[in-house]
């Protein structure tokens, strides 16, 4: 399975990923409807892009009372719009607070990997986002962690 991996140390908080995500999914630029968020802690100079991790044991999925959240064949966690009743249990359950809620449609939404071509990854000129297989990701995360003390 492939996933979106963020390298926060490369992120510059330009929020292009949010623009690209909302534009792809909503046809308009609206960061509040993006499925990826950049938390910018300006004072600390920490910029943290976060999106759905498609958890293996997904709390949103197990807490959905209408079984609207399911796991797809490609491994991602997806929401069936017709079954979603807008109860927001998934928002509460998500440990990363990346489940979104579209107030105009009254349903939840999460990252759908844009059908295999994630727009956020595509637009990021800083390589702060990567769409990669899980195996090499294990290695990349280790490298990120290892680089931190090296940078001092």
């Amino acid at each position: 399975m492939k996933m979106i991996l963020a390298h926060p140390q490369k992120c510059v908080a330009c929020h292009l990923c949010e623009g690209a995500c909302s534009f792809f999914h909503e046809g308009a630029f609206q960061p509040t409807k993006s499925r990826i968020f950049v938390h910018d802690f300006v004072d600390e100079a920490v910029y943290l892009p976060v999106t759905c991790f498609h958890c293996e044991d997904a709390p949103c999925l197990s807490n959905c009372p209408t079984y609207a959240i399911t796991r797809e064949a490609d491994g991602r966690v997806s929401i069936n719009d017709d079954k979603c009743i807008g109860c927001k249990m998934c928002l509460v359950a998500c440990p990363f607070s990346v489940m979104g809620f579209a107030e105009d449609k009254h349903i939840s939404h999460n990252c759908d990997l844009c059908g295999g071509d994630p727009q956020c990854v595509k637009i990021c000129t800083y390589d702060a986002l990567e769409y990669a297989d899980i195996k090499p990701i294990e290695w990349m995360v280790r490298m990120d962690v290892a680089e931190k003390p090296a940078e001092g």
Partner: protein
Amino acid sequence: MPYGWTGQLLRINLTEGSVTKEPLKMDWARQYIGGRGLGTKYLYEEIDPRCDSLGPENEVIFATGPLTGTYAPTGGRYMVLCKGPLTDAIACSNSGGYWGPELKFAGYDIVILEGKAPKPVYVWINDDQVEVRDAAHVWGKQIEESEDLIRAGTDPQARISGIGPAGESLNRTACVINDKSRAAGRSGVGAAMGAKNCKAIAVRGTGAVQCADPLKFGELVFEAMKAINASPTTSMALRGMGTASTVGFTNTVGILPTNNFQQGQFEHAHAISGQTIAKTVLRRNKGCYSCPIGCARVTEIKPGGKYSGRGEGPEYETIFGLGSDCGVGDLDAVLYTNYLCNQYGVDTISAGGTVAVAMELAERGYIPEDDLSEVGTELKFGNADAVVRCLEMMSYPSGKFSRLLAEGGYRLAEHYGHPELFMGSKKQDFAAYDGRGAQGMGLGYATSNRGACHLRGYSMTLEWFAPQDQKIDPFTPEGKGAVQKNLQDKAAAEDAVGVCTFASFGATQPEQLAPMYNACTGETLSVEEWMTAGDRIWNLERIFNNRAGLSRKDDSLPPRMTREPLNNGAVQNQVVHLEQMLKEYYEVRGWDADGNPKAETLAKLGIE
């Protein structure tokens, strides 16, 4: 809702504390694109250009462009317009950060501040809820604390644009700062806001910016992103070292203004260069909204020295303004004074220029001892303590000399009988390129509508930075009138549409930008019409200025530029040949010999 624009304007009458929402005049929007152009049109129609820039009849206009808030590369800019307190001409200062897009998401293209609040206030825009609120608790506070307090009283995600102590005390070099360190810097726009007793505008927006042709727009944007990543200027120089990457180059060439433009090379240039910054004080890069370049530097002074602090910067212009132009070659001192400027809310270029001219006046003995005693340290080139002290004095003016500093360099030099030592045009300080080593820049400084400015017609790109096959001779005055006109029109359209001029180094030339604008708004401008729109904006600014009482005499340079040759590096025995270039410039602009746009020029541009 129209595509690109939100179609709504917010008018805030501070005298009455009233808020009105108006539909955007779409015919004006189409004619003047947005941002700088549309803001100028509103200003031109609504205020008397002869008004007192610090009076209630002046307006302060915050204007975004149709691409602001989209993912067009660097599509996050906004402009602050007013009659400039520093220049008494049109002021139009550009800033990035996150504030402009937030205003669009809240549903407004433009905010107009009118009148004067009876007591300090700030404006809180929470989508369609807009309030004018008491600002007693933040008045007098420096930028960071003020932002934090306002955010605490509004929304944790609010974006804030406002003034510091300098703007409140009507310092004519005061700027408007958003997101703690992005500045709409020039012409004293912060003082105009201070004169209205308006501390800040806080915005939270949850809405959307629409796009007419999403497929086409996406295609154009992704193409541009690729080009920006492939261009060494944007992806290596600017991303790697920020604008400070320029220091080494201009110093080698001999146009890094030093000691109030007395020299063009600085012995300590390396110590304050982009390379040194990247190796020593840089914490990380930062990008403004939708910026694929990320030239902003987040820095921190290493502990153990005389200074401490952290913040954003320095930019190239700041390194010149607070560094070489004041003879200061200590990087920590440049960083520290940069942070001070951000906290006080003063423009690093004009504040630096003011200190530099004060230093030269003092060294030449033109300032009486009594006045100098206020400084408390020797006012001479190279004394960083004097820079720190002057910035403090001009931001919290109390005594006579500090009040003169707060008036900006021109008025200071004039007071002491030596206006010729002020290095600027239209009372606004030069930026960090000595015009004697780049004739086009010299002409650009003299003809810039908002007073001396490097970005209005950034001919450095052609005169020095361009690859050999595209480079033009920096020393020849011939043809520079046409070069400047073209660059000025191009920049006017960029500022109007809401992108940063740096994106054009990598991708967004008019040939790319006009189609992007079309795809976003649904308009159908050709590249030629796009440039004509830029021309139209330039001419409207010019008429504003002429009505404000400016004329050919204000398209001027100090005698140091036109009579004292520069001899540094590759620049040998050069002065600016202003008269010759002006003549050509007026001709290509379609202006008469006094610098007034001819009737037929205005008719052609559709300006009544």
